């Protein structure tokens, strides 16, 4: 799937989609896989009369590049993650939201009313959140993983049966965390230590993949994959040999948001989409179908107990306390991350 998505991206990047966004009155959405479905789009169209066109990206960077390389007027709604929201605000790529035109912000959980990545939700509305942990096949791992260092301790047994996320900050961050450092370290020595530790594991990593490990994991060809909770939970529900853990030393907490590009066509439709998703009924119905962790308290309250009690989706406060969100690091550290990430993946 990664390759398919990648090719899809390439295609999308090669030129704006036919119709070029706003001109045709429809709502063009650029989002992650699994965050919308036909039911959601159909309900919106029925309500507003606005047709919905959905394009998929598989990394924030692809989405950013697409927008920077001339796709700024192709989409009315994008779904950047937290740190990307900060970055895009700095680049002036996001519309400052007109709160007058939004309704239902009060439904958000208290934690997301004033997030660090976008104070006061000035440019983005939290949509869902999740963690990054380890997804494994119970029958294919020695013992029970509880923390990141499981990978290093069982390196030989897991040789080339591991995938890590093809995501610089997540994968280097998890390594930092396994060393007891912060995901958002600005300390060159710590970053270098993480690089060296990841390099140790590197020969036994089969691939850096964000998606596309599922079949091999189910088939037992892979033992453990670093995964976003949203992807992992879907798989654990599909097959009971699949387990997802949030590592004991802490994981990354991420938020995916709704935002409007600065040059978005049809902003009215964009505001309508955000308001639509903020509605508790709509949000809870979507969560029931798509199984993501909603940032909407009113929607959460409407969920059945078994979803509310799913610790993979909604981990305990104790674990959340040890986890951290990924935020932008200083330029020197960014350069170090870049350099070490390229070296690890090119080695």
């Amino acid at each position, binding site marked *: 799937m990664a*390759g398919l998505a990648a090719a899809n991206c390439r295609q999308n990047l090669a030129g704006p989609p036919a119709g070029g966004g706003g001109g045709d009155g429809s709502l063009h959405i650029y989002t992650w896989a699994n965050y919308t479905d036909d039911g959601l789009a159909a309900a919106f169209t029925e309500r507003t009369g606005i047709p919905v066109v959905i394009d998929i990206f598989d990394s924030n960077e*692809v989405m950013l590049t697409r927008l920077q*390389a001339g796709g700024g007027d192709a989409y009315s709604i994008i779904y950047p993650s937290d740190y990307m929201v900060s970055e895009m605000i700095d680049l002036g790529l996001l519309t400052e939201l007109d709160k007058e035109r939004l309704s239902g912000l009060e439904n958000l959980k208290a934690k997301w009313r004033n997030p660090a990545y976008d104070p006061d939700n000035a440019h983005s509305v939290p949509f869902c959140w999740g963690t990054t942990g380890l997804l494994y096949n119970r029958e294919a791992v020695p013992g029970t993983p509880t923390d990141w260092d499981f990978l290093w301790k069982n390196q030989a047994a897991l040789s*080339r049966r591991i995938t890590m996320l093809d995501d610089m900050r997540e994968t280097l961050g998890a390594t930092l965390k396994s060393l007891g450092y912060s995901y958002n370290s600005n300390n060159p020595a710590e970053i270098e230590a993480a690089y060296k530790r990841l390099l140790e594991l590197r020969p036994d990593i089969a691939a850096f993949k964000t998606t596309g490990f599922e079949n091999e994991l189910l*088939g037992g*060809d892979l033992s453990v994959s670093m995964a976003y909770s949203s992807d992992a939970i879907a798989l654990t529900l599909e097959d009971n040999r699949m387990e997802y853990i949030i590592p004991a030393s802490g994981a990354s907490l991420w938020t995916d948001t709704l935002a409007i590009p600065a040059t978005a066509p049809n902003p009215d439709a964009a505001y309508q989409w955000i308001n639509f998703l903020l509605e508790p009924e709509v949000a809870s119905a979507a969560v029931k179908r798509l199984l993501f962790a909603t940032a909407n308290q009113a929607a959460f309250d409407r969920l059945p107990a078994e979803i509310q009690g799913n610790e993979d989706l909604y981990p305990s406060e104790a674990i959340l306390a040890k986890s951290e969100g990924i935020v932008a690091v200083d330029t020197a550290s960014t350069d170090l991350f870049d350099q070490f*990430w*390229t070296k690890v993946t090119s080695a």
Partner: protein
Amino acid sequence: MREWGDEGMGGWGEIRILTAFAFLTLPTFLTLPTFLTLPTFLTLPMAPISSPKIPWAERLAPRRWLGPVVMLGPAGVWLLLLLVLPTLLILEISLVPGLRLGQPSGGYGLGNYLQILQPVYLRVIGRSLSFAVGSTLLCLVLGFPVAYWLALMSPQRWRNLLLVGFILPLWTSSLLRAYAWTAILRPSGVLNTIFTAVGLPAQAWLNTPTAVFIGLTYSFLPYMVLILYASLEKLDTRLLEAAADLGATPFQGFWKITIPQVLPGIAAGSLLVFISTLGDFVVPTLLGGASSMNISRLIYNQFLGPTRAWGFGSALSMLLILAVSLSIALLLRYGDKSTVTEPS
């Protein structure tokens, strides 16, 4: 100080970057023929003009150049817009060290090129070359007997059908084909099921360079077979009779006559496969896993990965374009001998 891609949407910088980007992401099948036609385009209109016997007034007469210009104009505009300009833009971006989209950067310099000289990147380039050379040789070794059989030994009435059957895989998406190989090569996949069934040791080839060689060879074998077939089909078998007549065994005839006769085809097929595999992205990404970073994946990561180092990515692109151009120059020089030997 200048800022790239940050001049507001729709500005000149925007257009430049978009054009450069569009070019970078154009599939190989689109750019390769363009590359191949460029020299033809450049040399065609020269032929009548550079002839020494024609006086200048005559050379400049509209009827001499109007025809070629009208016929070649559209292709020329196409090439200018999609090849020459983007390449120049990439060249310009590559000369800005440390360029990141949306961030201020310094003036021109060779920093991006110097960065390529770091051992880790040289290893990536070496790996790309070994992928390309290795799969080219594999294609040649596997493709030659097939092409030979098709061109010289297969039943005439079935020949076209067999040929079509062989190149049929080309008509499916390269992505799907590479993806299918993951199902074959994974440890519990089709290949190991067969290996185990016949008593061979199971192999963990997926996510290793071996899988990349297999995938690249599979993907580009039909091109090799097609080109070798075209070359072998033209082979004058009377030359082999002549060689036998002069005492050459079939083996000697093959090495001294067949191979030299189809050498232009071998060169053309090999260079085409080499060029294609050098820049291939899909197969190393899908089959190679973490162990097969090659130059095109590295370029991809510079533009679409987290680092977003466009300057470095452009420098790598220029290197790849240079390597491909050199290969094409070799192709044109040695790919067809008839262009080299002038008649008496």
